[in-house]
């Protein structure tokens, strides 16, 4: 909590610095604002930025590395016995120490661990103390420096504006940093995974059973990491979803933009778009509790054997979720077709449906394909519906009535629950994440490129 106090204190100091800077500018100009290069407020901002920014930066950087360094120091101070028990044991001990430090004591901890926790707490206190002294003295020194710079000729506004612009630029690069972060984090873990499991096994293996043996003598859990059944399952569910969403979405878009009058459109379009705003966990619940039993009962009446977690149920509900994506994107695309092309077709005596089928759809085709690709990428990355309604068993099948599993389901199952971070099981989730990210990235790039090119065509 002392860190929050520190940040608040720094912000308060900055506001004090603002007034100091403003006052100072009035003093150096002897009250004649006309002689100043910038308005007094900018001198205030100048000092405030000097006061706050470097100190806050130091606080951020310090906190980012504090836990890591303290943990390393504490681990180095642990008794030999614990360290010799291997890295997994050390991770557990570190967790326990951190729990004790944050006040959650379970049972009677080992005295060695208690002393390590005391060590941890002491290091943390030292570190926080140093940080507070460092940050406050930095803020004071920097403000003093900035105050000494204030002269009537000093270009405070230019300095403040270039700092603000730099901050704006930095915020916009966060998007790039996020992408880099995603790529690096999944890539590094995947590389570690591929050191244990060969890439070819992962890409072409036909069997997926990620339960690895905890003890060497365990039977039946060798751990197979062939991801083909997962891709097959993902594709099967995506295909079913698209079979639902594309006809319904496309026909709704056509009807709404070409046939419906303004009132009907004003009611139906927002209603359809509600479907896009419903959280996916709600769809998952609907699929698992209503649709799946319904399909199973229907199948039993028709004499078919339907798994209770059939691909059909998950796919159908996912299709419903995707409808508004297809329909609103296609709606935009169809509306972008110039009116002159419609008028031309009507002038030739074509009916509305003929105009749609032979003029508008061919003209809008690239855009429609782009929007369908975006919807496919959405369906592939969708998680909650399949986690709740599709199965866990990795069956390699094309039968929509059987249970299949998907890439996202496996990522969730592998990572939810307590296990150490370095086992091939958890690393496999990152390898799957890498595959998922790359695949949807390619789809998105193609789709966005097509849509962009298409827009330029009619602008």
């Amino acid at each position, binding site marked *: 909590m002392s860190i929050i106090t520190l940040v608040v204190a720094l912000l308060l100091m900055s506001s004090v610095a603002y007034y100091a800077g403003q006052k100072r500018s009035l003093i150096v100009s002897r009250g004649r604002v006309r002689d100043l290069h910038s308005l007094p407020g900018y001198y205030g901002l100048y000092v405030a930025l000097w006061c706050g920014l470097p100190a806050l930066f130091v606080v951020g950087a310090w906190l980012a590395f504090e*836990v*890591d360094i303290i943990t390393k120091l504490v681990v180095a101070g642990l008794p030999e016995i614990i360290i010799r028990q291997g890295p997994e044991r050390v991770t557990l001990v570190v967790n326990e120490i*951190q729990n004790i430090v944050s006040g959650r004591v379970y049972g009677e901890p080992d005295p060695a661990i208690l002393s390590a926790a005391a060590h941890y707490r002491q290091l943390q206190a030292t570190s926080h103390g140093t940080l507070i002294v460092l940050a406050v003295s930095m803020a004071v020194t920097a403000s003093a420096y900035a105050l000494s710079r204030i002269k009537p000729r000093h270009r405070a*506004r230019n300095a403040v504006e270039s700092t603000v*612009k730099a*901050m*704006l630029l930095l*915020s916009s690069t966060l*998007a*790039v940093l*996020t*992408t880099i972060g*995603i790529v690096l*984090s*999944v890539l590094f*873990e995947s590389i570690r995974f591929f050191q244990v499991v060969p890439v070819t096994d992962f890409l072409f293996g036909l069997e997926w059973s990620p339960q690895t043996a905890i003890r060497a003598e365990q039977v039946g859990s060798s751990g197979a990491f062939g991801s083909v059944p997962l891709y097959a399952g993902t594709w099967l569910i995506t295909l079913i979803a698209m079979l639902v969403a594309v006809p*319904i979405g496309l026909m*709704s878009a*056509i*009807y709404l933009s070409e*046939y419906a009058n303004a009132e009907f459109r004003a009611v139906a379009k927002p*209603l359809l778009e509600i*479907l896009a*705003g*419903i*959280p*996916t*966990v*709600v769809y*998952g*619940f*609907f699929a698992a*509790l*209503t649709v799946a039993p319904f399909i199973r009962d229907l199948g039993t009446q028709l004499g078919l054997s339907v798994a209770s977690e059939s691909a059909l149920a998950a796919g159908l509900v996912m299709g*419903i979720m995707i409808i*508004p994506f297809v*329909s609103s994107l296609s709606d935009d695309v169809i509306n972008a077709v110039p009116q002159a092309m419609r008028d031309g077709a009507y002038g030739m005596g074509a*009916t*509305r*449906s*003929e105009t749609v*089928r*032979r003029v508008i759809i061919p003209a809008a085709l690239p855009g429609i394909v782009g929007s369908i690709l975006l919807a496919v990428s*959405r369906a592939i*990355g969708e*998680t*909650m519906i399949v*986690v*709740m309604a599709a199965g866990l068993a990795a069956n390699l099948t094309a039968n929509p009535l059987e249970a299949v599993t998907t890439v*996202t389901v496996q*990522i*969730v199952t592998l*990572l*939810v629950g307590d296990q150490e971070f370095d086992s091939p099981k958890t690393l496999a989730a990152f390898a799957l*994440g890498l595959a998922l*990210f790359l695949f949807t*990235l390619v789809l*998105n*790039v193609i789709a*966005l490129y097509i849509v962009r090119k298409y827009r330029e065509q009619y602008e």
Partner: protein
Amino acid sequence: MNNRLGAQSGNTAPRNPRMPIEIIQAGLRKRHAAEFRFRLYGLVAITLGLLSLGTLFFTIFSQAYTAFEQTQIKLDLFVDAQLLDPDGRQDPEILLSADYGAIVKAGIGKLFPEVESRRDQRALKALVSQGATYKLREMVMQNPGVIGKTLTLWVPADDDVDMLMKGHTDRKEPEATRRLKDNQLAWLDRLQRDGRLEKRFNMDFFTQGDSREPEIAGIWGGVVGSLYTLALTLVFSFPLGVAAAVYLEEFAPQNRWTDLIEVNINNLAAVPSIVFGLLGLAVFINFFGLPRSVPLVGSMVLTLMVLPTIIIASRSALKSVPPSIREGALGIGASPLQAVTMHVLPLAMPGMLTGAIISMAHALGETAPLLMIGMVAFIVDIPKGTLDPAAVLPVQIFLWADSPERAFVERTSAAIVVLLGFLVTMNALAVILRKRFERRW
């Protein structure tokens, strides 16, 4: 494009010397029928879409409404000082660990003095929820003065009793497969005749945290967790998103770097949300060592997820401010940054806020990335800060949906209704904001 029409007329003209108008009229019925069918497909598509929306809402609401009531039993509980506080010092430690279950057991036993065998007594006690014990303990802890008195309390009944009262369990099922046995049913009937068993408003559902017992599980923990997470997400993402949008729209030079950022933002908007969870797990938790399951980390992940959407919405809000505003400001001597901060930004703010609210609604319903950073733990306590382990509302729904007890079905639906209520409110707010402040130039 019209080659089929063209081919037809080309083929028919020599064989059948009719006027063009006759040819057109001959095909007209067929064409009109096709037109009618096409139009019908469109209507059917919309109807199917709306029908699935209706079915979804109907099933959720029809399952949910019963959860707002909970079967309760009226018990006269003698708060025995001998049992709770033998030495009469009202020491909180002793009061906390005392045997309240015995008091509840005595309370229900008193209503049925004829029940004697140990097995029957246990079956009788099973009609009352474990929550009764907690409720009694809470009352005694708050007010130790009740010790030695007799309290008349409505306490929650067990979820099996609740399901029976709500008609989800069939009395005619054979006893062997039924959760409630014949003797228990008889006791319940007697309680009901005495007016000691009825359905009352389910306050616990709105004020309690999660529980393994469906009858005392509530959503308040999830609601508070969601509030913390969402507030932090807004604090992180809105300034960053607006700053990025201002840079890209007003200051960015047309070069490769800007292009790269734009392509990046558009792509990130379409990256599956679970990938952001993987990023959060690898970077925030494993690299920076932040704790698991806390709203702070959840909001950082959600910030990265909603940032592209906020940037895109803010940019279109900035775009809709006409250039004459900027030119006017520049013309009277404002610097470009002054023109933006003092003139363009205030005019674009309603549009940006609308975008932010819609993104927050999206973040509120998001589950998958939060599963990755460990926000699926079973947490009973109501979180008190952004660094306390917490669940969020959609995760609570996910956890309950996985529970086998029949009574959790209606509670899951009710939690969904609450979540949808929040979403509707937020979206309505966005619409009102847009209607009220939208300016046409």
